[in-house]
């Protein structure tokens, strides 16, 4: 008993000694700083732990060849700041216009040092609370009924200082190099330390393990001075322009593909690295063989006794010996600091480098633990941009909004509009919103309809994976149906082995919009919020369950979806049919006529004209409307006294229907063949 008491008192003692914050963020990289910014703006109690002396320590070292492959597009021809963020992949979100990346670099593919400077400025200009030189070495849980999530997080740093937090935001990225162990792997140099001076490779023959951007970046750097470079990896090369996935091989790094395909001695090979073995000969040359041969050989014999593949197969591809073997296999999340009680589990399959999280970015194992930034990429791995700055700056904001609602009773920000603004608000967002665009199929705008569809509430950039929990997660109610505005690529268009340049790859007709291949807006309509079960049963490759109706806005070459007939009109018809109402605009004169001839008015007249905000319209415009047959000019036409009345429908409406004579190009009746 005494021992137990002692242990208990020790425990409380250590608790008392720890520093408390509502929010603890591990890592002052881009996502850690981004989260800190939002918490600071909201006036929350938070701290960021950074093991280095400055933010963004990863970028201080990587990429080794110092060229970022995220674009820094300074000119778009537009001044719309939100739109321009679609083509700025480096800036973090803030209110400070000085913190746009184009002020830090003029290069389209900037130098990594610029990112380091940028992150330093971001932290200092915004006065973010970062504890540098603090490496969190252990994280554990302590149950407490009073805590937000039923437990507190206890963090210990390298100096055994303890920190106690209610909510833990893990923004550590993936920084542990992936290594493979095979016989002879001791001869392999790592990407982290390999020389970046091309002179060191002059006249050498190099084997690179890996097929990602770091591997190609390394190859690119030494391509001109080596004898030849071979690259070996399990998977085929995936070109990001073919997959729409920015994590795949970018064109800027793919010089080796050129020399391989033009038979200039360099080459690509596929094979499982686990089966590989390397043996060093007396001259220091490295020979490739298979683990299989090594296992069977006599251990006491020297190098000469090792069977090489070319002994049996004399045209074996990698029979030439190499001077160097370089490993460029990417990184994984550091799972080592978490106590087992946190149940931080690696993902499955190709996501094993990331911790398991829910689509709300909360850990599957521990409530109140959120994973941000690159480490949160399991949500949209190989799909969207959640593993990259231009994507996770938005998902981090989404997490912050979830937390505001959960812990501080601040519902998800929203704006209420009259229903007449429905088409406009969608058009505005799909044309400028960057979050929707970068985090396609992951973040979506949600439109919650108010009763009788006279008004709606607009929520921006909600993670669609947790659509079923919307009411709980946002504090907003959705009893009258909702629209989900999202952006998508064509479902079968992209892929590693597809020809993305085939003829007729782009759709131009609004009525074929659902076949659009390039990124385009899609609007889902649900009469009721989908349930968890429906979310689970969603068709594969669909970001959402089957809706009650769906609309695709046809892809656009300029990504400008403001064309009145091709983009806005079909959208309006879709919205009208979902809501069963008429969303057309009317001049005041039409509303005046309706007011006297119909008991009900269309929403535009009801919410505008009747409230003394009618659209009078200039004479010129009214004349155009008359010419179009959409407005009758009663001043000109003599009233034909003998015409039968049309009391069943308002005459104006009749007029609107009658006018629609399709204008079609000249066409002769030509018949192909008889029956």
């Amino acid at each position: 008993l005494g021992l137990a008491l002692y242990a208990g008192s020790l425990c409380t003692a250590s608790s008392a000694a720890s520093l408390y914050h509502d929010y603890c963020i591990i890592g002052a990289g881009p996502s850690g700083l981004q989260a800190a910014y939002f918490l600071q703006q909201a006036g929350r109690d938070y701290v960021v732990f950074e093991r280095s002396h400055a933010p963004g320590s990863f970028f201080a070292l990587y990429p080794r060849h110092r060229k970022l492959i995220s674009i820094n597009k300074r000119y778009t021809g537009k001044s719309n700041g939100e739109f321009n963020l679609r083509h700025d992949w480096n800036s973090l979100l803030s209110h400070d216009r000085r913190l746009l990346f184009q002020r830090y670099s003029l290069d389209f593919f900037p130098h990594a040092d610029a990112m380091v400077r940028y992150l330093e400025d971001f932290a200092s200009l915004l006065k973010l609370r970062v504890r540098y030189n603090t490496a969190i070495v252990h994280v554990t849980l302590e149950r407490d009924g009073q805590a937000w999530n039923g437990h507190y997080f206890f963090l210990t740093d390298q100096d055994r200082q303890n920190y106690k937090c209610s909510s833990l935001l893990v923004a550590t990225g993936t920084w542990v190099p992936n290594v493979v162990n095979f016989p002879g792997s001791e001869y392999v140099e790592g990407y982290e330390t390999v020389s970046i001076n091309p002179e060191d490779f002059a006249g050498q023959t190099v084997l690179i393990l890996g097929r990602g951007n770091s591997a190609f970046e390394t190859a690119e750097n030494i391509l001109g001075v080596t004898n030849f470079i071979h690259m070996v990896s399990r998977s085929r090369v995936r070109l990001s322009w073919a997959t729409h996935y920015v994590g795949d091989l970018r064109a800027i790094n793919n010089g080796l593909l050129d020399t391989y395909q033009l038979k200039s001695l360099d080459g690509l090979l596929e094979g499982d690295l686990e089966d590989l073995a390397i043996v060093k000969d007396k001259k220091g040359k490295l020979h490739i063989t298979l683990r299989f041969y090594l296992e069977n050989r006599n251990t006491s014999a020297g190098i000469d006794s090792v069977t090489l593949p070319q002994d049996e197969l004399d045209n074996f591809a990698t029979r030439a010996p190499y001077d160097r073997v370089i490993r460029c296999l990417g990184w994984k999340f550091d799972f080592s600091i978490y106590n087992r009680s946190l149940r931080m589990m690696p993902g499955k399959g190709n996501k094993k480098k990331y911790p398991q999280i829910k689509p709300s970015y909360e850990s599957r194992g521990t409530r109140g633990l959120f994973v941000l930034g690159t480490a949160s990429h399991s949500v949209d791995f190989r799909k969207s941009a959640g593993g990259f700055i231009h994507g996770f700056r938005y998902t981090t904001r989404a997490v912050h909004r979830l937390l505001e609602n959960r812990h501080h009773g601040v519902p998800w920000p929203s704006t209420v509009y009259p229903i007449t603004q429905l088409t406009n608000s969608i058009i505005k967002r799909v044309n400028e919103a960057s979050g929707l665009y970068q985090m396609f199929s992951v973040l979506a705008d949600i439109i919650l309809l108010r009763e009788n569809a006279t008004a709606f509430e607009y929520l921006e950039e909600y993670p669609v994976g947790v659509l079923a929990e919307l009411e709980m997660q946002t504090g907003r109610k959705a009893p009258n149906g909702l629209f989900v505005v999202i952006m998508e690529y064509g479902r079968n268009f992209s892929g590693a082995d597809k020809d993305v340049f085939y003829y007729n790859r782009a759709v131009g007709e609004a009525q074929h919009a659902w076949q659009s291949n390039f990124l385009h807006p899609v609007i889902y309509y649900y009469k009721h919020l989908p349930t968890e079960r429906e979310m689970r049963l969603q068709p594969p490759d669909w970001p959402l369950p089957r809706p009650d109706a769906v609309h695709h806005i046809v892809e656009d070459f300029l990504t400008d979806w403001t064309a009145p007939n091709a983009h806005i009109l079909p959208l309006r018809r879709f919205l009208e049919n979902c809501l069963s109402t008429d969303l057309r605009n009317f001049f005041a004169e039409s509303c005046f006529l309706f007011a006297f001839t119909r008991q009900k008015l269309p929403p535009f007249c009801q919410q505008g004209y009747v409230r003394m905000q009618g659209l009078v319209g200039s004479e010129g415009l009214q004349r155009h409307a008359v010419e179009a047959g959409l407005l009758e000019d009663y001043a000109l036409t003599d009233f034909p006294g003998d015409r039968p009345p049309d009391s069943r429908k308002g005459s104006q409406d009749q007029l609107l229907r009658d006018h629609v004579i399709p204008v079609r190009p000249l066409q002769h009746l030509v018949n192909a063949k008889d029956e």
Partner: protein
Amino acid sequence: MSAQKDRWVFSFSFLLFCASSIPTRGSARLLQELSPQEYFSSLQAGRASLAYFSHNVSPGAQPFLEQIENSAEALQDYGISVVKVNCPKEDVSRYCGKENALRKAYLFRGNMLIREFPTDALFDVNSIVANVLFALLFNEVKYVETLADLQNIENALKGRSNVVFAYVPATGTAEHRAVMEAAFVYGTVHQFVLTTEATLLKDAGNDKSDVSSARLFFCHCQRATDLGQPCRRTAMGQTLTMLNIHRHLKLMGAPLVTEVAEDPEKVSTVHLQLGLPLVFILSQKETYEADRRTAEFVAWQLLGKAGVALLSRDLVDLNVLLRSNVALKTPEEGVPIKYLVLEDTDEVITLVEDKNKVEQIQEDKAEDEEDEDEKENNNQDIQDDQVVEAVSRDKKRELPLEEILVLTEETFHSALLETARTVVLFYASWEAVSLAVLRSYTEVAGHLKGTQGVLLSRVNCWDWPGLCTKENVTQFPTIKIYEKGERSVMYNGMWGTEELTSFIMLSRVSCPLKLATIDEAEGYLRGEFPSELSSYHHTSLLGVFSTATSEAREAFEEAGNILSGHVTMGMYFEDDDLALSRKYAVSPPALLLARSRGRSVEGIALSKQSTQDMVRMIRYELLDIFPEITVQNLPCYLQLRKPFLILFSDGDVGQMESKEMLKLAKGRPQPAFVACWLNLKKTPVGRGILKAYFATMPSLPVLIWVNLHAGGQVFKFPSEQSITEMNILSWLEKLKAGLEIPSSTLSDEDWKPPLPAYDFLQMMETAVPELPLHTSHRRGDTPQRHLPESPGGDTAVPEEPSQGTKAEKVGSPGRDLRGTAPRLAAREKQGKRHSEL
């Protein structure tokens, strides 16, 4: 056999004997009554007669006799006489002798017995005529039992003559008679074939037809020169009557396509004469061959329903649109020819068939067109928003924007500091309503050109979303007036040039305006002070306060803030002598309302009112008693939520009417309706209202009662009564009592979507049935790529978009007019793609 013949001869002579012994009666009757002798002697070679032998009248044969008698007239038309032969009692000859023979009727041609009919085969006129003609036309009408028989006949006649093939469920029916009658007339022209075999009808490819009803087909064998080809058959759609068959054969005999080279208004064909429409295919030299094929194709489809003519545009000077390709002429007199632009032959056929249907149910023409429009649903992609369409039509005109300063995120704040008042239009350059307002705004800029202290500017929120958000602009358009370094006012009035100009002008003066001296106050009431507003005719409001009444004053000042720009409000603090109060017989706090430049000043006491109440009261007081209703001011009066009593007048309202209406409106207690008038010259859309209310334009002026907010009933003041207060009041009493019948009732229909949307969900399901919603098809997932639902693996991808179109074509071979050149219209149904830029 010979024995029987002997017996016939025997009874024959007996018959002759008998016939002579019975007196003839009723010579006018078509049924001859002859003795056997008379009868047989009267028989002429080649003439047919139907005879019935009888010993007086046996009771059982009575009804049969009646039928025979009745059919006499019908048979006479075919040169067949009907005779009742009276057998003498003792006659035991061939026809009279046997009891058995007396139950039969005999058909003779000349003195040849053609056929004997048991009386039960001759149950009525139809059966008598049918059977008699059937017997007589034994060679002309072939009876067949199998399809092979029919085909043999057809084959034998190919290239020579046509076949009329009829199916009747039984002989002796009305249909059978009609067929026989037709055969009698047309038997020499066409080969008639008859069957009662239901299986034959089915074998002939009419599986679905109801075998209980008769059918008639015209087999075009004359046209079929190729022996291998079957004869085309055209079924007759109508019931089998003599008239219909006649009509059908007439139509089948008409040329398939008539070539026309004259004004279509003058053209008449057998179709039009028979009450069928005539379709013109408009052709030109370049496409003549193709058009002729089209015409023939259409003609086959429409055979029996409409005629088809090929009209050569090169030969006739047509005053119609060049793109018209089809014209429709209906048989009704005086209906003009309709010229249409149709896309495929199906549409031509639908045009005709629908027309017939509509005629049958006798719906009016307007509705018919509407139905067609709705059926097509092709109009989804046509703009039906008047504002959007008007703005896009005006797109190319350059707007005179030089008077309006463009503001950006950078220049916005500095610009606001430069002028006393900056008007800012926040808009989106892609949004139609804000572009419409921008056009009015340029007109405002024109009006206000040179006005001191007002700067007109605009911010495009599509360029500067951050600025718009910061300025709390959530919807487009928004107009705000910024006072230098101070507050801003959001414009909440009509988006019209006049209203906006007036708002900007009124906003220049503070609201309420503090008046320092009694002279200023008097000048203010006369509309002379302040001078900036002297050109604006407004009702002026003056709050009169003694210094003590601070509560009402604060509310008044608040109300001024809210109403700023819409009203001119002044306030005056009186000293002890209360000069103004005494002049207008009020005690402060009070409100003075000066209408029409101070000619009438009204005083209202101000009690302890909240700001909201004060705003409401001021708004209400500013309403006219007998206003002229305009597009702009209607909303103010709608808010009263009262019924409207409107005098529609062509021009100014007459003095007499005006006086009476004013009396009515001023009546106490305050009337529970809005008495107003509408000037059709100034508000021409008023004609649209009258058009909706009445079948014919009523004579003006017309007084209308309409309850817009409850029931929507419209009543018209009797035109024979003069518009006086008394007459109106008693009329209104009657209305209230429900003694008047409304002229019309306003529709309470909801505003539904004008047209359907593209149903992409359904398109996805039809084009790729299992793919998107039920089976997995992950990208880069090689083992799945060869699953049947993605035909052809990778190569399927480029083809997928056209699957829908392909399916359409398979469904209707030869009907797609877009199959061949020349066409520009291909973009309409096939996806247009920009891969080639």
